[in-house]
């Protein structure tokens, strides 16, 4: 693992840290230096709500090597309650239960193990609500 590369992403991956544009309220996840909507460079630091809904999804059956033992692996685009979007695995469910529009909650989990030493990398995954 390239430690600095992983460490830099911790605020986003562990705490869902995002930037909210002080001019137009665009939410940048991960944080950005300039707003793609209005060009403002002023952001307020926020943490995304861990609740949201599935915009679209798939179930990956042929995965990259790091995930090859986890197939079938449901993954979705999720829109948080603030309107920010991200890609995350949907876990603790039957793949058949994953549907567009369903509500989910983001939780803290191990995402993958990297390298021969199997160093764990953490971040957010989604679980179905209700």
């Amino acid at each position: 693992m390239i430690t600095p590369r992983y460490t830099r992403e911790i605020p986003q991956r562990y705490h869902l840290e995002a930037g909210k544009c002080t001019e137009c309220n665009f939410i940048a996840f991960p944080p950005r230096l300039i707003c793609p909507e209005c060009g403002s460079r002023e952001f307020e630091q926020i943490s995304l709500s861990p609740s949201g809904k599935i915009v679209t999804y798939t179930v990956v059956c042929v995965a990259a090597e790091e995930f090859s033992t986890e197939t079938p692996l449901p993954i979705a685009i999720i829109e948080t309650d603030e309107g920010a979007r991200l890609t995350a695995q949907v876990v603790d469910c039957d793949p058949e239960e994953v549907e567009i529009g369903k509500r989910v909650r983001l939780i803290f989990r191990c995402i993958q193990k990297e390298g021969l030493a199997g160093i764990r990398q953490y971040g957010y995954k989604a679980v179905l609500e209700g």
Partner: protein
Amino acid sequence: MREVAIVGVGMTRFGELWESPLRNMFTEAALTAIDDAGVDHIDSMYVGAMSSGLFVHQEHIASLLADYLGVAGIPSTRVESACASGGLAVRQAVIEVGAGVSDIVLAGGVEKMTDGVDAIDALATAADQEYEAFHGITFPGLYAFIANAHMHRYGTTREQLADVAVKNHDHGSLNPKAQFPFKITREAVMNSTMVAWPLRLLDCSPVTDGAAAVIVTSMDVAEKLGRPIVKVLASGHATDGLALHSRTDPTTIPAVGRAAEIAFKQAGLTPEKIELAEVHDCFTIAELVVTEELGFVERGRSGEAVSSGETRLGGRIPVNTSGGLKAKGHPVGASGVAQIIEVVEQLRGSAGDRQVEGARIGLTQNMGGSGASCVVHILEGVS
């Protein structure tokens, strides 16, 4: 910009070319294009390649390939925009000739993908590494996001997706350069291995070795060569957010619409004037969405259009007469150049069994990643 023509084309067979190293594949395609054009020199060259570094651990290939083409000394530039690298290489050549900087430029593309590298991993670098690939999404997975959204919104069916692959294999069966020059059935597609719901193995373009090249010249040079001339009417290019989730509507690929809008405006044409198109069918759903973005079919109607034969040879607007990426093969850096070659052959009237009778105006659409880059060219045959 002065007017620009394509006067020579050349490509290798597409497939698993174990006997050919990257440098020879490119050189073979380039020499064929140079001979076809009948030019005695080139002023400069562009090379489209997505990831020679990951696939064969070789960067700096613009100079390497100029050397092996026997033209070391001329300016040679590598162009990278994932799977749109080839189309973008052609665009750079068009701009350079159009601007009057050079008169004769070679634009080529190459990818050597079957030397044993994990292609899923290499191709995934075209997606956002930290916010997409990190979570386990693959390229088929990203297009499956689009497919599920399209099916949910418009009622596009699994059968309609399969019909894209069936059509492109029908076309590819007529193309001796294709990796898979044979027909397949709807049942075969729908029973093939599941890759990422709802996309199956036969919805996906293959991993391919291959190279393609064209010669781009000023009209003055083109007219003196005495070869069939295909004029470049327009070159549109657009970009978008790399992460699919950063775009508002996953049933669309906005960079395609933007690049097309630019190109149609440059050419002074509307989509109805296009007589055939080579589009980026890296996955069956990609061809469907792209035909909507290009304005060939109404939004949401692309599935119906493919199943009713509107986009097949003999239909209203034949799409991917070469077999497309699906059947012809998808050596990523070469694909955009090979699209141009198919349209040039069609406009010259030399496409053999795949010929669209009397075709005069054709379009190519090449895109990178899940649609974060797109290049559209419109070409006209001059008789």
